[in-house]
């Protein structure tokens, strides 16, 4: 019993220490954001998708990216691929619906680009989007920044 109580208090201190608040993750102004921490950059009917700085920080070092096939149909809110980090696979959710026209093959050799350059070299897919109205379901940079703060404040 005493060892259990000791463990409980140690665990509580671990919980405080292990949470790593790095201040504010980078959030870019001209992008739209999903609550599952993906970003999308829209140019007419063409969209580029990746995961945010907040997401890559919480994932840890990415060692593998599972990419969809070019030509695949994807739907807003559905999984289109996955990343692996620290022995955990996490699915990546699409912020838009449409057809995948290009995937970032560089990620096959350098999955760490997702960590080092989440908004540029670490982009994941390019999509021809069907319905730009769907973008209204996403957050702008200000809302997303607040969302991240609230989420990090939960623990």
């Amino acid at each position, binding site marked *: 019993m005493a060892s259990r109580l000791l*463990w409980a208090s140690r*665990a509580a201190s671990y919980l405080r220490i292990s949470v790593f608040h790095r201040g504010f993750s980078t959030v870019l102004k001209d992008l739209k954001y999903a609550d599952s921490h993906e970003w999308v950059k829209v140019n007419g009917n063409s969209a580029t998708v990746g995961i945010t700085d907040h997401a890559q920080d919480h*994932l*840890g070092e990415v060692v593998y990216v599972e990419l969809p096939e070019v030509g695949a149909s994807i739907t807003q809110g559905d999984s289109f691929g996955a990343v692996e980090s620290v022995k955990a696979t996490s699915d990546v959710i699409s912020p838009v619906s449409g057809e995948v026209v290009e995937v970032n093959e560089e990620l096959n050799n350098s999955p760490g680009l997702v960590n080092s350059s989440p908004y540029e070299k670490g982009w994941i897919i390019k999509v021809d989007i069907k319905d730009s109205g769907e973008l209204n379901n996403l957050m702008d940079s200000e809302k997303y920044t607040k969302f991240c703060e609230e989420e990090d404040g939960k623990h």
Partner: protein
Amino acid sequence: MRVARCLEVWKMGTINYLESIKLQKKLVSDRKTNKISDTLLSLQHPLTYTLGKRRTDHNMLIPMSQLKKIGAELHYTQRGGDITFHGPHQAILYPIISLREIGLGARNYVEKLELTMIELASLYGVKACAGQKGETGVWVGERKIGAIGVQISNGITSHGLAFNIDPDLNYFKHIVPCGIADKGVTSLRKETGLEKCKSQRWEGQGSFKGLQWLC
């Protein structure tokens, strides 16, 4: 302010691997729609080898025919991590929890799984620690005592951790465990020399440990 949360613990005894996958899929789906609360499965598997999403089957060192002879199964999974072995007297925890609800990322979650095993080992006087970068898991010196492989789908976890109480470590010779060739495996039995390392007792303690940091 932290909201009170509920964790339901299932102590399942020995369960076939595919049955556990089927169960986890159902629980993940139910957790996603909030039909159930966070759930923790505590169990053992019969002789089983599993591979992760990257399908690193070059780390399986014996052919299927020999696997059949020794009575072991091989399964491909969607979890992270490399090849591993599960068997009697290895204690397994599969937490089905919503990381999204508590705002936790993969890295912090896995750290907590490591801490669970480290603290449990310390109860038996074994000094274990988390692996260095790229070697997620729990180690006693250069020997691995606990492995982790997780899947996170829509922010809900499945699969989890496997802690060696007293499995037959010879079964690890048929693989390159976790893809790490130059390090060994160990167990609580091997580190403590204790004659009786009852897995049933661990099931109680292990799920209790898992409970501690989730609440």
